[in-house]
């Protein structure tokens, strides 16, 4: 089991020795036991870092933000930046490196192993405890359990009861690409891969049932773009399906702006929302590493993970492609095999 204190010490040493210029990690915020992302640059700030089941965020996003910020300021990174990374986060980094977004040496990966558990899911906490992490006053890992403190006192709950689906199904709880890892690599099987997806596919076996379900979901989307904004793989300078990242540089011509393709309209109607989500899912095929962030942040609880998982499963079964395992290989859609499925073609 990881002693959170070790994390603080590591981070402090890294900063103190000048080995890294900053550490991206988690700290306690003002909302109960909900951790929040933080970027620290001073050794003395390291004491504020935490590691507990509320560390849900995929911090790779902040490396992307850091890089964009530096590019904007025309600065070169210099020393590497350290990041606290779970298994999934580390795989996000692998994809980012596979896509040349970073060089390996630009990032110091302070891995944390999820060992036999993972992070929690607020909705499951809500069901189990009647309140979510924002109302808890304590929460930590303890072996296979979470120990939480509610208004009524401390409670021990078996972690799988409240763990995020993606953690239950996780096949890589150990950050394989790392500079150092806290915690052990444990063999574990909590749920079959794609279990939630399979449950869904079984429950909505027919085409009308599928549509009935997704129609509701897509009509609900308010297109706040949180799902895209939080995704470390959606680091495009300008997203092709939203308008909010419209980039204009000095050399952007009027014609370029005038000719920007509007694939979907700004209206959050069903058709446009589908356009948005389909595009995003397809863009993430072979790149999404199932950190589940998009689904977690959605304010109207659209089960986006199902979309990404579907393509992940197809890619794995049909193309033998697993995202986030190698920096070297060509990405899913820029490669092919002779025996890719052909039977859907006439």
């Amino acid at each position: 089991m990881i002693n959170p204190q070790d994390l603080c010490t590591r981070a402090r040493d890294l900063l103190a020795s000048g080995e890294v210029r900053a550490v991206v990690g988690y700290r306690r915020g003002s909302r109960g036991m909900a951790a929040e992302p933080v970027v620290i640059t001073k050794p003395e700030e390291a004491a504020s870092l935490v590691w507990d089941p509320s560390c849900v965020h995929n911090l790779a996003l902040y490396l992307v933000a850091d890089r964009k910020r530096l590019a904007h300021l025309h600065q070169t990174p210099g020393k590497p930046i350290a990041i606290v990374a779970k298994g999934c986060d580390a795989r996000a980094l692998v994809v980012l490196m596979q896509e040349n977004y970073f060089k390996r040496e630009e990032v110091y990966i302070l891995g944390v192993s999820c060992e036999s558990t993972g992070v929690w899911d607020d909705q499951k906490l809500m069901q189990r405890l009647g309140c979510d992490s924002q109302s808890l006053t304590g929460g930590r890992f303890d072996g296979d359990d979470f120990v939480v403190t509610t208004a009524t006192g401390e409670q021990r709950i078996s972690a799988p009861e409240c763990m995020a689906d993606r953690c239950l199904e996780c096949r890589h709880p150990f950050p394989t690409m790392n500079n150092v890892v806290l915690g052990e690599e444990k063999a574990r099987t909590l749920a079959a891969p794609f279990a939630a997806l399979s449950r869904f596919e079984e429950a909505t076996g027919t085409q009308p049932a599928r549509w009935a379900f997704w129609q509701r979901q897509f009509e609900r989307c308010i297109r706040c773009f949180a799902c895209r904004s939080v995704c470390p793989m959606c680091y495009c300078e300008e997203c092709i399906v939203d308008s909010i990242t419209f980039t204009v540089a000095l050399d952007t011509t009027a014609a370029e702006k005038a000719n920007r393709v509007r694939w979907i309209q700004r209206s959050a109607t069903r058709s446009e929302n589908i356009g948005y989500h389909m595009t995003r899912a397809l863009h993430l095929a072979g790149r999404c590493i199932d950190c589940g962030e998009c689904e977690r942040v959605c304010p109207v609880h659209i089960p986006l993970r199902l979309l990404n998982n579907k393509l992940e499963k197809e890619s794995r079964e049909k193309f033998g492609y697993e995202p986030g395992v190698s920096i070297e290989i060509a990405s899913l859609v820029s490669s092919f095999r002779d025996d890719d499925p052909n039977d859907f073609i006439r």
Partner: protein
Amino acid sequence: MEESKMGDNIYLPQLARVIHIKEEVPGERSIKTFRVEFLNGGGFDHECGQCAMLSVFGRGESMISIASSPLDKEFKQFSIMRAGRVTTAFHDLEVGDVIGIRGPYGNGFPVDDWRGKNLVFIGGGCGLAPIWPVIQTAVKRRDDFKHITVFYGGRTARDIMYRAELEKLRSTAEVCLSVDKAEEGWEGFCGFVPANLMEKAPSSDNAIAITCGPPVMIKFVINNLRNLGFQDDHIYTTIENKMKCALGKCGRCNVGKDYVCVKGPVYSWADLKELPPEY
């Protein structure tokens, strides 16, 4: 236009026909001047410095300064720089095409308060358009004002808009043109507008300065004007924050508590310097 079922609909444009198009400045960021006349007996009166929301249907709306004098009742004039989606659509228009127009918006220059004063106009690039109606009005009501000086500069001689009109203006006003870099055959000033201003150093006595242009230029001009002794409340400029509704609702043009589309775009430096620098 169809009668609105809902009475006064602030979002519904009137229709106007383009009756004249003139290319002022060529190139990638070309500027064209459009004269339009309202259809179906529509129209509105405006003050110098006010703006209108112009639309090319299917492409969208843009806020554009009304570049004609309020004294010209039979048409409205706009000088539009090709900048993006909507403005490009404008540049693709031909005489006879119909556009949408709603307005007038914003506060306008307090021209009447300036009676009996010297007027110093300082414009750069496309920034001549918003102050052009003031110049026009001042010329039409020439006796109301004393000395009129117009500073204006472009990157090159080709970038000078209203070239012919400016030459004509020389008969009633002092016109000081400049280009950024020395050019063959250029007889005016070479250098940036603020430098030209310092070179000519117009007197701040009983004078109002009106400036408009790119944000950096304005910054230097205001600085120089103050060095020349202009009081903060005798310096006027306009702010062009992004606008969508022009009605103080859509929420993007605000600087501090002010919605520029309603409280602006014209500000005296005395007022503007109280606001946070979000423009």
